[in-house]
């Protein structure tokens, strides 16, 4: 009992505290490959704390949707984070069918983020919202196909037993295919290169950042925090497929999990360093490829 309580507390503590570290690691990696010194590792924390202390400027066009969207998004992401097992430890909340809830919580977040973007009445933000909902249609297919692979492998309908199913019984190719597909979705959903460039200075080509142009102060801080948390949660999920290694000693496993997450952020940073951003019109092809990878994984298991 105590064991579970402690693991749950560690889970929640990591979920709340660790997310902003990942963008920090990504930026540091990118700076390393570009031969720069780069911002401090903890810069995202500094940014969020600074924003939370600042005042807000809110467009007079907006309604309650605009201000509630960042909070709803954060709440949905937080709940999704409670459904994913970190490392070899069961998630705080797990029940049959929680994987569908997991997928739809991000849909809830998307509904509010894109509505808030339309709420400002600016065409740039509408543009970002349109891209977000369009690409989501393609990535949802990939996610469900990837989850189908895992469901079939593990024979269970809950994220915790599904992702913690014994490694021995996993046929390698389908898992790798699903992992590749889900990794592409991870990049797309978190608006990383090659789908979206968080650092671009051209509003016309952005997706996520352009939707939040009119946010400021604490709301913007919440958005940054929520985005980092989404990256953290999805990375923790994909990690189970890429690196299903466990030591067996709880303390060591938690340390290993943290190290793996940092390594994951490093990999994302390397992808960003070595790849160029795709043209927007090519993004659907990439996402279709993700669906195909997951779909092939499924086909391989059925045959």
């Amino acid at each position, binding site marked *: 009992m105590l064991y579970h309580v402690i693991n749950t507390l560690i889970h929640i503590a990591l979920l709340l505290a660790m997310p902003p570290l990942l963008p920090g690691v990504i930026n540091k990696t990118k700076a390393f490959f570009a031969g720069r010194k780069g911002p401090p590792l903890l810069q995202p924390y500094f940014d969020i704390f600074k924003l939370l202390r600042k*005042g*807000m*400027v*809110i*467009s*007079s*066009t*907006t*309604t*309650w*949707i605009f*201000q509630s969207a960042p*909070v*709803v998004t954060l*709440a*949905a992401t937080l*709940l999704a984070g409670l459904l994913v097992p970190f490392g070899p430890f069961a998630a705080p909340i797990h*029940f*049959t*069918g929680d994987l*569908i*809830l997991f*997928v*739809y*919580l991000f*849909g*809830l977040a998307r*509904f509010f983020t*894109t*509505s808030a973007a*339309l*709420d*400002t*009445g*600016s*065409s*740039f933000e*509408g543009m970002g*919202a*349109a891209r977000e*909902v*369009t690409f*989501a*249609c393609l*990535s*949802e*297919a990939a996610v*469900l*196909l990837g989850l*189908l692979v895992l*469901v*079939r492998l593990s024979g269970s*309908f809950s994220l915790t037993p599904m992702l913690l199913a014994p490694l021995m019984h996993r046929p390698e190719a389908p898992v790798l295919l699903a992992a590749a597909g889900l990794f592409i979705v991870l990049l797309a959903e978190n608006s990383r290169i090659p789908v979206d460039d968080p650092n671009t200075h051209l*509003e016309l080509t952005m997706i996520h950042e352009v939707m939040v*142009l*009119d946010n400021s102060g604490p709301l913007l801080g919440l958005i940054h925090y929520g985005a980092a948390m989404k990256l953290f949660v999805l990375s923790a999920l994909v990690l189970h497929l890429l690196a299903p290694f466990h030591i067996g000693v709880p303390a060591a496993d938690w340390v290993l999990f943290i190290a793996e997450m940092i390594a994951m952020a490093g990999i994302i940073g390397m992808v960003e360093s070595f790849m160029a951003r795709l043209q927007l019109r090519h993004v*659907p092809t990439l996402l279709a490829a993700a*669906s195909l990878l997951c779909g092939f994984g499924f086909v391989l298991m*059925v*045959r």
Partner: protein
Amino acid sequence: MNTALYIMMTAILGMALSGVPGLFLSRRGMAGQWMAMLLNVLATLLGIGALIVFASGGYHNVSLAWRWALPWGGVAWGLDVITALFLLPILVISAFGSIYALGYWKQTQHPGNGRKLRFCWGLMNAGMMMVVLARDGVLFLMAWEIMALAAFFLITTEDHDPCVREAGWIYLIAAHIGMIALVAMFVLLRWATGSFDLWLTIPAPAVQGSAAAIFLLALLGFGLKAGIMPLHVWLPGAHANAPSHVSALFSGVMLNIGIYGLVRIGEIIAVAPLWWGVTLLILGAGSAVAAMVFAVCQNDYKRLLAYSSIENMGIVTIGLGLAMIGRSINRPDLILLGLGGALFHILNHSLFKPLLFMGAGNILHATHSRNIDSLGGLAGKMPMTAGLFFIGALAICGLPGLNGFLSEWLIYLGLLRTAVVAHGGTSVWISLAAPALAVTGALAVAGFVKLSGSVFLGNRRSAHADHAHDPGAGSLMPMVILALGCVAMALFPSGIARLLVRAAHGWAPKMINAGDSIGLLAPLHEMALLNAVLLLTAVGILVAFWIGRKSSTAAVPTWSCGYARPAKRMQYTGASFSRMLSQLFAWMIPVKPLAPPEGRYFPQPTELTQDAPDTVLDRGLIPGFVWMQRVFMRLRPLQNKPVNVYLVYMLGILLLLLLALRF
């Protein structure tokens, strides 16, 4: 023990007669409308009372047979759990619709057609109740026809408008093609079972071919009513052109009747062949995805809602197909989750879709425009409508926290369960409907963000919206109750779940026990708790917003990356919002921008609209019928001849018949 049915008969009578007193009252006064509303509400209360009697009697099937002086014998009625589940939306939505109409379609403002509308409204509701209660084929068909014809007159309420007349004609043709299919189906059913009684199981030795023909005819007849995708052609036009409370009734109730027929057809054969379920599943999945693609591309918000109804019926059909597959391969879990999810989704759809159509009615009443792109910023002018519409939109997208998620979740779980079987086997591929459902969900978010975002948020795009305001409390009250219903279904699903199990028990008594529990397969209780957490969070956010609304935040115009003078018309419109998606699906729906030619030397004021045709109707059926008309015109020379030529024709036919008999 037939008390429940006798009370229900009285309710049907009250419903059917609700519009009659108004016919004899002044067309300038409100008395007739009030009387119709009161009669309708009274009939609803009676009907609900009958259902309570039925429930307190332990849900035992009751039936009633009357002798009737018609050549085909008696009239049989019956009430079981499935019928009760379909009766409930008819009763509730008809009452709410007639209350809503008191503010929306006032007799004093519509002296020309208000009385006709209410007369047909009552007949339509009575017809639908009779359809689900009928246990005799001939009675079923008569009730079906009453419903279909009343619906025609409801669609053509504003028959001075050519668009309305066209929509009405298309509906009438579709309805009668469906009727022909159903007549043929009942004839075959009579032949297979030996009686007109419904819904008897076809005895096993009956020819498999006839069962297949019955299924296909039922699919055509009931599918046309439910609007399953290639058969949906009448639906968008009818929903868009009817008065909004009529659209609410159509979408929330009448489409259900088509599904009701399909549910019953699933029952009539002891062991259904696998392809029945698979056909339904494929049709449902295709219908859901394609309809939502069409919905996203619409510029008329009532058409968008209509396509979304097709999508929801598609989701229901997926569930139903899954249940049929469960019947064929002997998997009770698939029946519980599939049929349970389908029936649950029907109930949910009957809550949120009328809510959305009533919201659309408020917008139309306030702005007189059905074009998404000429509205905008209505949330400030009509806050109640906007808030209620958002609740409906969140629910219909199946997002967690509201009821739509629960029913889709049951269907998802059923689909996922088919992925876990031993190697090979057809049933594994069935689970591929789950990704289709996910794409539908993402498309639904796109469509409803487009609708609510462009209509309620941002700035006003045209003068249409300048004088908009919320309607009176009378029109808002039904919407508030429907929204509360959505919340209640999300928080307390266990009562519904027990009903769903009973329905599944009635549907497949050999595989499901009345005491089974959906909760073992899908922990609805936990999910409801999480819904409560999400809703409490939402309420907390709203309260915090309400308290902090006067805090020292600077309110300025939208920044828009530093535009000096952002104009209202520079906003992203609904059409531009869906442009990217419509390009992605251009092979499915050819959306064309309609731009007038540009000025030769100096730019002229210009305007860009978008034409989103219905691929099946505008690209397939209408050109097809025009072609057929041209072919048949070639036969014209055979016609209009003197009488003696016709005599020769007759002789020829007679000779042909004799020859045919000879060999």
